[in-house]
């Protein structure tokens, strides 16, 4: 941190200024001129919060993707399929057990098991053959998508959060002041806040696991040099299976999250595959903090785009990707 400030004083100043402006925008009561120029504060705050929570969802999907890629150099194009399977598994788990919270571990275990099967039955047989693996995963995603359409139909599935989570909660942020001087506090969907906190917990836990534990050390070593790790007597196949299972399980959890505040239906698999591709390209392939940063950027871009220039909202995400590819092809936090 300190090294960054001494090395890039100009950038530090710009970032500090941006942060200060953002804080002011969040906490201050907006003057009329600003409201006239960019709309009400309520809209801005909601776009900001929604962008961050949507980023949380994207992070859950993309972190598994980037973890698998980082360790095994395997572009798993069936990742979106795992996400969708997780959504369906979560829906049935939630409606059978009647508990929304139970849907998470069940989806994690079921989809994690699918991931383990994929690794053992498919990827192990074609290790090191990138192109073949990529093509096989495309094939799997198409076949499974059709099987899911056959099994679950084309209906839209919503996973219902429990009573105490549905509906809005009042935050301490003031969006407007009434003419008699009483402040209007912002209301925000409870479930989104909880899901975002969950994503943060998962992210921090992953970071700690990777940087503070022995297994994490082995995984990081594997990312850098697989052969050397294997040569030093680590059972690398077991690590591969574990990481693949964990990455797939995360996609499954993300499916439950997606089914809760969006919906699960045919076509969601490719949408989330595309989203996680964009996120990891922007953030840097194989980097967990990169996935977090990329997810946040893409989520914010989508939400701010949808309110401030709806017609071009779709373009904005890809614009970010193009700019990153042009100026920093390895991704924002990627290593070249």
């Amino acid at each position, binding site marked *: 941190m300190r090294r960054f400030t001494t090395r890039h004083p100009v950038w530090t100043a710009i970032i500090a200024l941006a942060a200060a402006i953002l804080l002011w925008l969040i906490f201050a009561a907006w003057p009329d001129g600003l409201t006239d120029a960019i709309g009400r504060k309520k*809209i801005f705050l909601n776009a900001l919060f*929604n962008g961050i929570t949507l980023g949380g969802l994207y992070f859950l999907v993309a972190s598994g993707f980037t973890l698998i890629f980082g360790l095994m150099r395997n572009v798993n194009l069936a990742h979106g399929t795992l996400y969708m399977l997780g959504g369906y598994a979560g829906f049935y788990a939630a409606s059978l057990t009647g508990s929304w919270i139970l849907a998470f571990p069940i989806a994690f275990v079921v989809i994690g098991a699918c991931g383990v099967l994929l690794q053992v039955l498919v990827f192990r047989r074609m290790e090191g053959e990138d192109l073949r693996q990529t093509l096989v995963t495309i094939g799997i995603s198409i076949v499974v998508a059709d099987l899911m359409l056959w099994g679950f139909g*084309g209906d*839209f599935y*919503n996973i219902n959060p429990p009573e105490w989570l549905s509906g809005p909660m009042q935050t301490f942020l003031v969006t407007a002041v009434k003419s008699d001087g009483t402040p209007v506090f912002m209301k925000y969907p409870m479930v989104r806040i909880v899901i975002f906190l969950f994503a943060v917990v998962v992210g921090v836990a992953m970071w700690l696991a990777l940087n503070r534990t022995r297994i994490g050390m082995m995984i990081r070593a594997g990312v850098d040099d697989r052969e050397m790790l294997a040569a030093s007597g680590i059972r690398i196949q077991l690590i591969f299976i574990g990481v693949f299972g964990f990455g797939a399980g995360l996609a499954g959890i993300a499916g439950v999250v997606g089914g809760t505040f969006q919906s699960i239906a045919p076509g969601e698999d490719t949408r989330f595959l595309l989203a996680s591709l964009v996120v990891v390209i922007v953030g840097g392939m194989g980097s967990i903090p990169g996935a977090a940063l990329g997810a946040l950027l893409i989520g914010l871009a989508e939400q701010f785009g*949808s309110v401030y220039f709806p017609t071009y909202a779709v373009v904005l995400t890809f614009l970010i990707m193009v700019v990153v590819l042009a100026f920093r092809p390895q991704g924002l936090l990627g290593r070249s």
Partner: protein
Amino acid sequence: MTRGLLGSLSTVALIAVGATGAAAQDDGPITIGILNALEGTYAVPGQDGMRGIELALMQHDHKAGGRDIEIVVQSTDTTPDSALRGARKLVEQDGVDFVIGPLSGSEGIAIRDYSKTQPDVTFINGISGAMEMTMVDPSPNLFRFNIDGAQWSKGLGDYVFNEKGYKTVATIGEDYSFIYTQVFGFVTEFCEAGGEVTERFWVPLGTKDFGSIIAALPDEVDAIYLGLGGGDAVNFLNQYQQAGGEANLIGGTIMVDASVLNSQGRAKEALIGVPSSGPQADTWDDPRWTEYVDAYRDAFPEGERFPSPSLFATGYYNATNAALQCLDTVEGDLSDDQVAFRDCLSNLTLESPTGTITLDENRQAIGTNVVTEVVEREDGTLANELVKVVENVNQTLGLSPEAFAELGLPSRENPECKSEY
């Protein structure tokens, strides 16, 4: 002598070939090309459209005008280019006699243009609802037996203003031709009744996260008009509930369609009591409608169909029925560029489950529209309850053709909200 013999022999041979050709055309099966969205966002409605076709064929024993009927199904994904590709394959490769389809608004416009390049093939619309399909530069061999998106709005503006007492409304809709057409119909009637449309929000088709748009919706309006469909509609309702939205809602036609009303989860409950309008209502007691619903329920086992047919099933059912009736009338004669068949279609009075349908000079349907409200049935499923029937809705919505032309075509900002048109 030899040459003369050869000449007459070849003439005989030619005649024989011609005769067998003609005979084959008269007795052989008639092939209908079906263009239907069986992929993408509208795959579920598309499947129900197929049920409509099958039901009409079953009721006709797969025969019309003394000839067998065969169908070739071509799937699209609701994009205009997939519809065009599909139509090309049906007409140029499979050589079908006529085409029924497509499903979605923008596809319909693409098929209108394509039909002009194939003057000897007849096109009957499936359930595409964009106004331009028959309004602008109509094609002489294209017939539409469903009323369009603006006609589907007929009666709603008046109802919510006078009966519900909503004076100001903001609209939110997907950014494409069909929703423009629906909002067009709603705005003209609502504003003429005295209401005011304060703001119009447009979101890209396929938007999944509406969180910020929900926050941007104005608090001070009486109601919000929702022009969304399929997955977008379900996502909006889900997030609207989570955000604690309490405004009165008004639904566009596909917002309250069977595919949304039958979705899994609680999101759809936000729709209970929401007024809407469209070509059909689940609880209609017109005998033509109840007979059709019974036939639909008998034909397909429960679980493989909706509780009652969606408007997509009805649209394709009506189109197929019109074609089969006219094939009966012309006794299967599709010669001379299908002139007799087209003549019959143009002048047909179709007694459909959704009322009597006739065609205007642009071969566009004049038919019945209904205002509905979503209710919860005893078994917990949702249905559209009939509120009001508006008969003989034409494409200019009762305005004179000149006044209607002055309005311009539906777009994001058109038409303006005025008290008189």
